[in-house]
């Protein structure tokens, strides 16, 4: 039981980050029916930007306890801001021109891939190419917050899980209740007709990228704080988050959340079984994905944007 709880929480930690990233994929897929391959670089940019801010704030100093939450918040915001701006620029450069030309779907995919190469290499050039950059240790991430069934749950896990959940609830409200949500759905289903209803397509698409980017960037900060970050960090979490989005039903916001959490948990729980071993973690993720899709071709919750079922 103790092991199970430990694994469950570490799965939830990973899962909530996947979910945050997955939301970016799902939102963009929702409006454009495109896989935004450069989203993993949006995530990465969040980590670097927030590092710069946090590092500048912390430096070599000893930080009094009460400032820690503020710094954390600053990291979250700067990560989100960076993610949002990168995503915004991404849409401007790699998508809008192609959209205007009515390019085939795969052309978007490839231009996004080009963008992804560019961003990741650029980050490598601007910063460094180590795969294991770390945030400064400005608080004791490993402090035990509480114990369930003997399993010690640590501060960083609690922060990540709750942070992610708050952001997701916020997004869900934003998309299901507001006009923005309506316009996203409208553009998703039939853009020219949505324009006839008074929806500004370009603005809606931009906003979608910005929202997804902000979540992805914030996730970049969380990820960097929990693990390590690098200019190529986006790749694997990106692929997994994309898988999570598909798992939940791509284009479906709650699906992305559920898919992300589920994938995170499965990924930790299954390899923890004695006869499997942690080295199969990534395989488990993909095998589960393939199996789910074969059994349920449109993902767990199906494809509807902004709705649970």
């Amino acid at each position: 039981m103790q092991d199970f709880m430990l694994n469950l929480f570490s799965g939830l930690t990973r899962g909530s980050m996947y979910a945050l990233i997955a939301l970016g994929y799902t939102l963009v897929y929702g409006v454009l029916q495109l896989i935004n391959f450069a989203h993993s670089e949006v995530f990465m940019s969040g980590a670097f930007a927030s590092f710069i801010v946090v590092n500048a704030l912390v430096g070599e100093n000893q930080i009094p306890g009460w400032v820690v939450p503020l710094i954390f918040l600053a990291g979250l915001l700067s990560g989100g801001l960076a993610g949002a701006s990168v995503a915004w620029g991404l849409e401007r450069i790699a998508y809008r021109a192609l959209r205007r030309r009515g390019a085939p779907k795969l052309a978007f995919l490839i231009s996004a891939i080009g963008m992804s190469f560019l961003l990741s290499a650029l980050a490598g050039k601007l910063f460094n190419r180590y795969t294991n950059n770390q945030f400064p240790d400005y608080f004791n991430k490993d402090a035990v917050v509480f114990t369930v069934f003997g399993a010690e749950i640590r501060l960083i896990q609690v922060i990540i899980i709750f942070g992610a959940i708050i952001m997701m609830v916020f997004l869900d409200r934003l998309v299901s209740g507001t006009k923005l949500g309506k316009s996203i759905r409208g553009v998703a289903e039939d853009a020219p007709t949505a324009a006839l209803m008074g929806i500004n397509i370009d603005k809606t698409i931009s906003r979608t990228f910005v929202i997804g980017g902000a979540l992805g960037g914030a996730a970049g900060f969380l990820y960097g704080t929990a693990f390590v970050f690098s200019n190529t960090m986006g790749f694997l979490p990106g692929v997994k988050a994309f898988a999570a989005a598909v798992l939940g039903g791509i284009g479906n916001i709650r699906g992305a959340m559920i898919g992300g959490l589920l994938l995170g948990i499965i990924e930790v729980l299954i390899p923890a079984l004695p006869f499997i071993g942690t080295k199969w973690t990534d395989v488990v993720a993909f095998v589960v994905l393939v199996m789910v899709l074969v059994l349920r071709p449109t993902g767990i919750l199906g494809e509807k944007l902004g709705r649970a079922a």
Partner: protein
Amino acid sequence: MALLEVDNIEVRYGAIKAIKGISFDVAEGEIVALLGANGAGKTTTQKTVSGMLRPSLGEIRFDGKRIDGIPAHELIHLGICHVPEGRRVFPRMSILENLEMGAFRFKKPDEQILEHVFEMFPRLRERIKQQAGTLSGGEQQMLAIGRALMGKPRLLLLDEPSMGLAPLIVNQIFDIIKEINVEGVTVLLVEQNASKALALANRGYVLETGEIVLSGTGKDLLADDRVRAAYLGEEIAH
């Protein structure tokens, strides 16, 4: 001054000139029909008026104000509502959501108009939660018209509203157009069903390969031999 003035516009798809300089106008309170064979440019004309396309030459004025080049999502605030060709309902949204989308430009959908739409098309009320994509063709057409009405149009652009509708409904639709018109909405109608359209319209224009070749009141056009031959499919040669 007419509500809508189209002044010598030209519209291109890349190298193809679909509209080669046409002018017409629609006065407040009128129903004006655009007729023409397939590919004549009727849809293109409507799309240009509603802002989905941009003319390469010429001017369009609405209420005296130039509107060519203003994108569709802004034009709707002037009350130009377009029921596009092929219905284009939002397939994964429910009927109610589709209707709400029609009122997107307002803070909140107008309950009265909603009620009015349901009165006109009771079938929509019955299926209020059904996904629009699973409606039959005719049901979708009703929804598309209802959706446009939710936007409180001053000028309603209708592109082949009777396509795919059962004869009974076709008659109803024309009645409804009349009714909407009587309530003060100006209508620019594109129709294949020329006889019905002209019977309803105050005036009509006939398009052929991007040019206006004939115009006149509905009655005159209905009586015109060329129209009867080409658009009513009648043999007049005997």
